[in-house]
């Protein structure tokens, strides 16, 4: 069988010219997506990469104490190091003092081991009095901690360019002097609680949202259009209203002299002089977040329920099923895609929530994002904020991946 090529009008084989057209269309589509893709890549994806980089980047101190770390290379970390090490420290500190940049290393060293702050400050202050020769003795005279090997070991431990110590801190672990991973001191173990609370709040908010959203989505999907459109406003108005407005209305409602507490007192559930604290604790976070995230559960459930034909339930009943069995065997399984979409969406949103817990959560209702914000804005430990952010991001991306597999990201519906 001879292969006969079909030619198009201009003499090029049809197959080839089709391929060419396809390629052209492909490029055209890519060309349209390119501007947004590049924009997001440069202003969003690269910065997130930069954040990951910052969380492990520990080069600052390496650059500031070059001679010290070089001199320490051969020191075994057992007994006190010899004269050259102290001489190197002297030279590095002298250089830093002249440039007035030693403040940075103080903060960094104090993260490594507390006590460095006064040690470095005192040493820098008395640096001018140090005479040439016999540095070791003079250093120990200035501050006795220069004679304690654990401080010098801690100093040596900051030498590597990269460090995952921030990640250990994020899960209540740390390095000891010999670079073994051990548990954080008892009074500093707060992150495990914080992570657990974050997951816990996100989980229960998702469950509450589901319990509240399922019946009303069903009602909205089965009512005649003119009623359901009206009721839909109850879902959409909060959805379109500013998050801060909704949070402030919860602050009004939940305050000690607020309407909810009035109601509780009026119902006799609590005495007037012993009103329960509904705000600035985890209760406030739960209530406010459930109401705020509820529309994100209702909308996907509604759009799935809308497609379920009512005749299916009638068929189930006519075949002798009770309403309960027809619901469980017919209706519920058909709504599972909507449940998956709604629950994953609410969980993803809840796990990274910041504004509402910060305003109504108080200390006991604060979540991991509040801690990230604290390290960004108050403690200024940006590397640690980046590490916590990266850990949260990995969790969210894992759920996002599942969501994409189960629901498909292009099936998100808005309003």
């Amino acid at each position, binding site marked *: 069988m001879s292969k006969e090529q079909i030619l198009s009008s201009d003499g090029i084989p049809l197959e080839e010219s089709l391929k060419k057209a396809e390629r052209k*269309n*492909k490029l*055209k*589509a*890519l*060309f*349209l*997506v390119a*501007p*947004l893709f590049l924009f*997001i890549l440069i202003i*969003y994806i*690269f*910065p*997130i990469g*930069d*954040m990951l980089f910052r969380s492990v980047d520990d080069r600052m101190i390496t650059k500031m104490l070059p001679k010290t770390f070089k001199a320490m290379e051969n020191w075994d970390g057992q007994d006190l190091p010899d004269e050259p090490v102290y001489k190197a420290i002297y030279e590095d500190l002298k250089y830093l003092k002249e440039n007035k940049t030693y403040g940075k290393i103080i903060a960094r060293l104090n993260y490594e081991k507390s006590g460095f702050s006064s040690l470095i400050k005192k040493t820098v202050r008395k640096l001018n009095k140090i005479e040439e020769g016999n540095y070791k003795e003079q250093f120990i005279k200035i501050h006795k901690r220069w004679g304690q090997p654990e401080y010098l070991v801690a100093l040596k431990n900051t030498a590597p360019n990269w460090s995952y110590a921030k990640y250990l801190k994020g899960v209540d672990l740390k390095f000891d002097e010999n670079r073994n991973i051990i548990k954080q001191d008892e009074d500093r173990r707060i992150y495990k609680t914080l992570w657990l609370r974050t997951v816990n709040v996100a989980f229960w908010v998702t469950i509450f949202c589901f319990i*509240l959203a399922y*019946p*009303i989505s069903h*009602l909205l999907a089965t009512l005649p*259009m003119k009623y359901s459109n009206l009721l839909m406003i*109850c879902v*959409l*108005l*909060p959805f*379109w209203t*500013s*998050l*801060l*407005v909704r949070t*402030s*209305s919860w*602050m*009004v*409602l939940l*305050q000690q002299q*607020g*309407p909810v507490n009035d109601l509780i007192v009026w119902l006799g559930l609590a005495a007037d002089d012993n009103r329960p604290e509904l705000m600035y604790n985890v209760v406030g976070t739960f209530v406010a977040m459930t109401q705020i995230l*509820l529309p994100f559960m209702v909308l996907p459930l509604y759009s799935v329920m*809308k497609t379920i034909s009512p005749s299916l339930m009638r068929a189930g009943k006519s075949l002798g099923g009770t*309403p309960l069995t027809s619901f469980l065997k017919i209706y519920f399984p058909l709504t599972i895609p909507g449940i998956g979409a709604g629950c994953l969406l609410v969980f*993803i949103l809840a*796990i*990274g929530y*910041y*504004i509402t817990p910060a*305003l109504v959560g108080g200390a006991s209702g604060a979540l991991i994002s509040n801690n*990230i*914000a604290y390290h*960004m804005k108050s403690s200024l430990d940006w590397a640690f904020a980046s590490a916590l*952010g990266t850990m*949260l*991001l990995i969790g*969210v991306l894992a759920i*996002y991946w599942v969501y*994409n597999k189960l629901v498909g*990201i292009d099936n*998100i519906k808005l*309003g």
Partner: protein
Amino acid sequence: MALPNHTPLNYRIWHYAYLTFCFLVFFFLIAPLFVILPLSFNAEQYIHFSAKMLALDPEGFSLRWYEDMIYGTKNPWGLATKNSLIIAFFATIGSTILGTVAALGLSSRHMPYKAAFMALLISPMIVPLIISGTAIFFFMAKVGLAATHTGIVLSHIILGTPFVVITVTATLSGFDHSVTRAAASLGSNPVNTFMKITLPLIMPGVISGALFAFVTSFDEVVVVLFLAGLENTTIPIQMWVGLREQLSPTIMAVATCLIIMSTLILVTAELLRRRSERLRGINR
């Protein structure tokens, strides 16, 4: 929803319990918003319903907090409103143009790696704002755009585009591509076809995406909190600051204005959605 006469009693109970539950949930959703309205007209300085208000005594109500909002001394709301509107305006334009163009490409049959691109372009909506805020802050600080309107607008464009991409892709999913081919066969160039044929047809999706982008920017506080300096303050920032200090009636007045605005946006969005469904021939 009336039940047929022969419904057994236990089903009746179930049915009314279900309706009551639904009513309570709707109440839970909408009632908090309506607490704010009367309180913004409070004549007193405290955020609670005074006896006079409950008795509907006209003396219990006043417009003083609205006056305070507009004319109050060292009043931040004027500057904040101006900034919010400027930022939201440019962010909306940026998101809408970039998002619509990208959605056109994503909806093409010939787009390679569609799912991967889509997942990437939607990601700013999924990634927690606190992470986006942190990352964008580092970037803007590095390129010298922290505490500038430009920096905030750029980051809001990022946060707004996913909504535009989603709504426009949804509109394009019911788009009949033969009309553009018809235009091409009649000698129209691609740009002309887009402006005269495609754009008018997908306009409802574009506008509702733009509304989402506008609201996202207008309401966004986390990223601005990281980026803004004193001159870049916005309405959400001022509300955030105010709420952290104490609940003031002026905030209630601002909140009432925002609720009115969101009602208007909701109505517009609903009308657009229906128009879009009609244009695409979906009748439900």
